[in-house]
């Protein structure tokens, strides 16, 4: 293909470095690490408890983590685009509170759902305006909105829990083809987003923005618009997750999903998303969600304190960023 004879230059060794062998490329992908860890976690937890050999047990225990996992998928895209959103758990709480409150006030479920979703999107839009419109750093902005949204939820709900009608309760117990509905939603969203991020031009552009936003703008990519849409998607996903949580719990309190931002960021990081943007996959986050669910359930089965779990999660977050950072800096030459 390249015409060797026509160019008079001496080709230096730098001109074309040999490509890495394929096995190496696959092995050093962070998702591979996640997968290996997932298998390890299965082996360890099934040795602790025979429950882990039962697929139904695993599926039903995953329903506890499905809501955060769904949001984590969207968050993965936000991080790949070079931003971050720490407010989704608070968004879940506020949109769920507004949803439940509207239902209580009007007894109209469609209206309540509309309000809930609208609120979620509005919160996403508020983040987007501050980050993209006002050009404030997303990391600090969403710390502020995290406090704000959670606080508003507290104002609306007070210390009460708002009950929901029976027909709305228990999405986690609904099965479809023997699989809990939240798991199905998670898998469907995973497939949809994996396709979006991996096969469409918009997904491609998200990576390009995260890799080099200036270059992306020069190449005519509308970086600001795409990032705006991502924050809206975050808001929407959080609202859906908030209502799913409400259905699982049967009632809504302001502390719904408290501390969820850690788990979501952790899923993205464990799945190999690069904290500085430009790298990461939906598959990685998908695997990491299962990994986290197995670890958490394993700890629960082993009757570890919830607090110990918190500890493990915090530690995992730090280890996973350090590890992904090392992997990426090694492959970058």
């Amino acid at each position, binding site marked *: 293909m390249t015409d060797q004879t026509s160019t008079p230059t001496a080709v230096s060794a730098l001109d074309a470095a040999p490509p890495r062998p394929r096995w190496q490329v696959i092995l050093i992908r962070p998702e591979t690490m996640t997968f290996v860890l997932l298998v390890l976690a299965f082996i360890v937890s099934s040795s602790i408890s025979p429950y882990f050999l039962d697929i139904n047990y695993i599926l039903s225990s995953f329903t506890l983590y499905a809501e955060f996992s769904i949001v984590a998928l969207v968050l993965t895209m936000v991080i790949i685009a070079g931003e971050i959103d720490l407010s989704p758990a608070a968004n879940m709480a506020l949109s769920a509170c507004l949803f439940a409150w509207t239902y209580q006030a009007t007894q109209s479920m469609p209206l309540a759902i509309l309000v809930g979703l609208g609120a979620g999107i509005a919160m996403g839009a508020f983040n987007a305006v501050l980050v993209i419109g006002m050009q404030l750093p997303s990391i*600090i902005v969403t*710390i*502020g909105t995290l406090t704000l949204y959670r*606080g508003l939820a507290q104002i609306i709900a007070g210390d009460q829990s708002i009950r929901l009608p029976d027909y709305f309760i228990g999405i986690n117990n609904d099965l479809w083809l023997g699989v809990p509905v939240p798991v199905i939603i998670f898998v469907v969203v995973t497939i949809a987003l994996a396709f979006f991020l991996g096969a469409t031009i918009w997904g491609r552009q998200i990576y390009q923005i995260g890799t080099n936003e200036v270059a992306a703008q020069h190449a005519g990519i509308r970086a600001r618009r795409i990032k705006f849409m991502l924050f809206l998607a975050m808001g929407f996903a959080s609202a859906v997750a908030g209502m799913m949580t409400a259905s699982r719990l049967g009632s809504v309190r302001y502390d719904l999903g408290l501390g969820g931002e850690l788990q979501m960021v952790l899923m993205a990081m464990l799945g190999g998303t690069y904290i500085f943007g430009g790298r990461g996959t939906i598959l990685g986050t998908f695997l990491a969600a299962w990994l986290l669910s197995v670890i958490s359930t394993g700890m629960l089965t082993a009757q570890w*304190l*919830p607090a110990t779990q918190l500890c*493990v999660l915090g530690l995992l977050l730090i280890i996973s*960023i350090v590890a992904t*950072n090392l992997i990426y800096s090694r492959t970058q030459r």
Partner: protein
Amino acid sequence: MNALRSILLRRETGIAVMIVLFVIAVGIAKPRFLSLEYLRIILLLTPLIMIGAMGQMLVLVARHVDLSIGSTQAFAAMVTAMMFKFHPEIPWYLGFLVSIGVGLGLGFVNGALTTLFRLPSIIVTLGTLNLYRGLTFIISDARQVDRQYIPSALKAMSTTSPILGIPWIIFMALGVALLTYWFASHTRVGRQVFALGSNPAAAPLRGIRVNAITLMVFSISGALAGLSGIMYASRWGFVNPSNTGAGFEFQVIAAVVIGGVSINGGVGSVLGVVLGVLLLGCVSAALPLLGIPGTAQSAIYGAVIIVALLIDRSVRQRGIAALAAQRARA
């Protein structure tokens, strides 16, 4: 005239004016707010936040952020409280050393992770926030350390007063503020923190050791969070693994940013932060009086953070615009 103008234009003046206006407005609605009793309430609300805010100010000035201070406070308080519980023979004032030392250690870990692996401090401290909180539960077996175990001399610090009926812990908070002022404004290394935050790329060219300074500010922030831990035990008389220090980081960040510390580093003053803390204290004290439920607090902190970010941005933009205009003239 010019001097007067520059005083009026200072950020601190703005906050002071806001405090006065707020107090007057609430006072008109509820005259009780202007009583000495309420002054006492306000002052008692502030010391923990004040101490945490001094550390956070230094961290923010160096262009970082420390989200873990609430958990650090809880862990340090818990270690100290359990020491009192199981070794009541240890003199109560040694608790200060323990609490500060533990906090210092945790802060050092934050700084080490941030500098060693070149990670964004916000993610590191989001991790340690949960890690330290989890550790607090583990060492305490998820149980609260109750009133009877906290030395009464320690508890007395929040109730007894050396002078004017103002309790000891308020003087301690003021002492920390004064020390921080001395450190930030009158020591070489303090000024290096400001230089680093003002222009990180140029800092090494002036011989500033960036990693050492970063480690230092995180350690200070941890140590002060530790101090606030034992003061929590003094103020409330118990240490609870889930309540102690919960949401502390947001109160502190809100106080610091409203006090004029820039999230872009390099800017901040102790006076501003003290006023920011006081403003938050006034607001917190006024809420129940005005019939606003205490549940609104968190939302107010969130709104305060965002408003402060926007103010900070407009201040910065005005600076840039002024520079651009100057260039266009030239």
